[in-house]
């Protein structure tokens, strides 16, 4: 029976292959047989070796990751309009991959029995299905299955089966090599001359070892060997070799699997044939287009929110790469925040284009909270506000309305590109956070003069603002106003300091970790509330106290504080270090579990990681004591 939902489904299906090859009327019939399935983020659609479902799937909303379980290798991430779970259509056997919702997703399950006749009778459809199947499994050899599909015979050759990720990797063919007896000093000179970070050690043209920059540090500079030692003493051996025809994805996986940064490519992939090139992690990253400059360019060129969303996926890959390569956290955070900022900026620009008129007065878009502190490396909630130039009272309502409307576009756009709405409505689209300069001044004065618990909480979120877009002068004026007022009402520091000490302690009396007691995150350690927030809160109080302007990042604040208060420099620097270490921790966890990384499963940490975490707690305790003493918080309790 045709109904509104089946119409809705048919309307969606008709835009995507293979359904666009099915006549409209028949598509209607098919749509009536569809099952709509909802999947929470990270929930399982089907497991490896699960018996085949009665449906295959097309993604209506969200994304699904297809994984090989053996090595946790992600084969593909399917997006809106992509089909997957085709194995039961192709062969009557259990699933070979695992499918898991990468985002919250709505899938349309297409009944296989009902669909089979179309696939059998229409060559274009069966071709498309085979190609999709091959790309899902990233297995070019499923070409062999061609002609077997559902008993249909002869399918004309398809040249465009080559998918971009399946393209063989590009590597430099100019191979720099030395033999095993060459003194390392000469090896170093050879490498410098050719401007390479790694060199192959060969014997009779076959690869026997590899020397990278790191080996010089570990074996020569450390004093282990003199610079006259032969290459064979410092090289890593044997060499990990692969065939020169490996794909980008394979290369990436290979490096991750053996945690190496260089792969040697040989004729047939074994050590017994001639080496043809060296592939470094850097080469892989460039091949993927994952370098900040390329990404910034792509962001600037984006014309739709959806495009930015796709780019942000690459940003996350870049982040993973940086973490894997142990790039200093300060730098990583800077680059990633820079890219995130670029995304936000572009979103605002696109939203401005949606408005009928240009902004009536100057304005600034503020990132607040963790985003304002540039400590937002993973996708989390959006926290933002608008501040606009003062206008006469009679014009205020229309101007406010204009910016509210703009903010609605922007927050919706940010949501599309992957920032969840703020559950506390701390967004510029909320009339409370879309104010003129004068209104903001009044509001912050109120917080500073009447520092109740709520006002302090507001200040602690809002006072970490940075300008994402627009006019900096207005924002500076507000900053001056805040400093002026806090100097005038020093009691505010005491309250803010008191607020900063409210975060729950990370460890209990016996130095055990304290974990959450209830909810989905029961028995997990809340790294944000128990470790990151105390540090960020303490930094804020001290920064305000010193009227430090336009530094909102927590570790940069501590670095500045170390400069200003030499006697406490050591503590401040260790705070700065702890902050970076914790953030790195959180980011790693987040990437690993594909969430915000806030909750950490302690039983999955190594002893070393736990020790590392605990060391930062000592620092947290010390900085809390410092602000407690300095601002005489105890008096407040009396």
């Amino acid at each position: 029976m045709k109904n509104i939902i089946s119409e809705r489904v048919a309307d969606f299906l008709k835009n995507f292959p293979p359904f666009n090859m099915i006549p409209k009327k028949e598509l209607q019939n098919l749509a009536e047989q569809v099952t709509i399935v909802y999947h929470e983020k990270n929930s399982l659609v089907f497991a490896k070796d699960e018996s085949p479902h009665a449906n295959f799937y097309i993604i209506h909303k969200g994304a699904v990751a297809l994984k090989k379980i053996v090595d946790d290798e992600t084969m593909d991430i399917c997006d809106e309009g992509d089909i997957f779970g085709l194995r039961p259509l192709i062969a009557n056997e259990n699933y070979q991959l695992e499918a898991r919702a990468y985002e919250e997703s709505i899938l349309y399950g297409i009944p296989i029995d009902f669909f089979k006749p179309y696939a059998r009778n229409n060559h274009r459809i069966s071709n498309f299905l085979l190609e999709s199947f091959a790309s899902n499994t990233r297995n070019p050899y499923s070409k062999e299955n061609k002609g077997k599909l559902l008993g249909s015979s002869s399918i004309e050759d398809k040249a465009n089966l080559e998918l971009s990720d399946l393209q063989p990797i590009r590597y430099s063919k100019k191979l720099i090599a030395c033999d095993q007896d060459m003194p390392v000093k000469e090896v170093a000179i050879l490498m410098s001359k050719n401007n390479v970070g790694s060199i192959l050690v060969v014997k009779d043209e076959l690869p026997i070892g590899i020397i990278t920059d790191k080996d010089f540090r570990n074996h020569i500079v450390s004093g282990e060997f003199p610079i006259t030692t032969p290459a064979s003493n410092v090289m890593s051996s044997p060499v990990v070799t692969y065939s020169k025809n490996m794909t980008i994805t394979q290369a990436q996986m290979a490096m991750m699997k053996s945690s190496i940064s260089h792969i040697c490519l040989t004729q047939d992939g074994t050590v017994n044939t001639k080496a043809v090139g060296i592939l470094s992690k850097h080469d892989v990253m460039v091949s993927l287009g994952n370098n900040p400059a390329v990404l910034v360019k792509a962001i600037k060129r984006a014309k739709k929110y959806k495009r930015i969303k796709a780019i942000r996926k690459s940003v996350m890959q870049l982040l993973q790469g940086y973490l894997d390569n142990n790039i200093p956290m300060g730098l990583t955070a800077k680059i990633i925040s820079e890219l995130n900022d670029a995304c936000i900026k572009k979103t605002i620009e696109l939203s401005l284009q949606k408005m009928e008129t240009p902004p009536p007065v100057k304005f600034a878009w503020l990132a607040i909270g963790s985003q304002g502190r540039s400590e937002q490396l993973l996708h989390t909630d959006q926290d933002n506000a608008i501040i606009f130039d003062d206008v006469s009272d009679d014009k205020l309502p229309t101007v406010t309305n204009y910016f509210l409307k703009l903010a609605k576009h922007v927050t919706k756009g940010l949501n599309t590109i992957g920032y969840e709405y703020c559950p506390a409505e701390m967004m510029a689209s909320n009339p409370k956070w879309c104010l003129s300069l004068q209104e903001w001044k009044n509001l912050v004065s109120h917080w500073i003069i009447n520092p109740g618990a709520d006002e302090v909480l507001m200040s602690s979120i809002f006072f970490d603002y940075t300008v994402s877009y627009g006019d900096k002068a207005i924002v500076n004026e507000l900053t001056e106003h805040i400093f002026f007022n806090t100097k005038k009402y020093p009691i505010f520091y005491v309250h803010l300091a008191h607020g900063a000490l409210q975060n729950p302690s990370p460890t209990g009396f016996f130095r055990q970790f304290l974990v959450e007691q209830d909810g989905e995150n029961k028995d997990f350690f809340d790294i944000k509330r128990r470790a990151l927030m105390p540090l960020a809160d303490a930094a804020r109080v001290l920064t305000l106290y010193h009227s430090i302007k336009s530094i909102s990042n927590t570790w940069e604040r501590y670095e500045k504080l170390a400069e200003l208060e030499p006697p406490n420099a050591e503590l401040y620097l260790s705070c700065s270090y702890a902050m970076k270490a914790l953030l790195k921790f959180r980011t790693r966890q987040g990437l690993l579990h594909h969430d915000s990384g806030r909750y950490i499963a302690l039983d999955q940490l190594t002893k070393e990681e736990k020790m590392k975490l605990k060391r930062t707690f000592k620092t947290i305790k010390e900085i809390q004591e410092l602000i407690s003493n300095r601002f005489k918080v105890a008096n407040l309790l009396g």
Partner: protein
Amino acid sequence: MWWAKKKQEYPNFWNTYTELFTKKQELNLNLSETTFTVLDTETTGFNFSDDRILSIGALKLVKNAIAIDRVFDVYVEQDIYKKESIKIHGILKHTKRKLISEQEALIKFLAYVEDNIIVAHHAKFDITMINRALRRNNLPELKNKVLDTSTLYKKTLLRSNLLKQKDAYSLDELAEKYNISMKDRHTALGDAYITAVAFLKILTKLKEKKAISLKWLLKQAT
């Protein structure tokens, strides 16, 4: 005398329906194993005594999935038609759709809903409308347990004195918040679909906060 009061005779379809409720419902069931009937009604207006149901749309939600060939979609023949409400639901008196009598619609609906947990947005309105229709046909009220997405949605919001909560959130607001397409808004089945998706998203949000059970959900009803 009370013992002499003759047990009222009800038609077979009603007895079949009530028999489903004789066995005690298992409320500790895993949420994902529970069958929900998500419904919406379109009516001639908002007055419980004067206004009438024009259509009922419903779907079954089992294990987070909706089978399209199992949806419920009926249009009811009514004598009362109001111009104002036509603007909203677009159902004209002389529609080309197949109309059935109120009684027939109820028979079909009872057979469809069985003993499922009913989910609706501002559920009280739809349930009362159906109950009034049942009363007009000399039948008692629905026996199903009911969940209201408008009250459950409020449980997903942060509670803070800084954040004023509205008393009621419309289906439009939920659809906007959760990015659900508002196509087919104001058709019973279309709204039932939006409600179902919103319901699933609400459950996900609630689960982030705490472990939820069917029992807990039902407790939030008020």
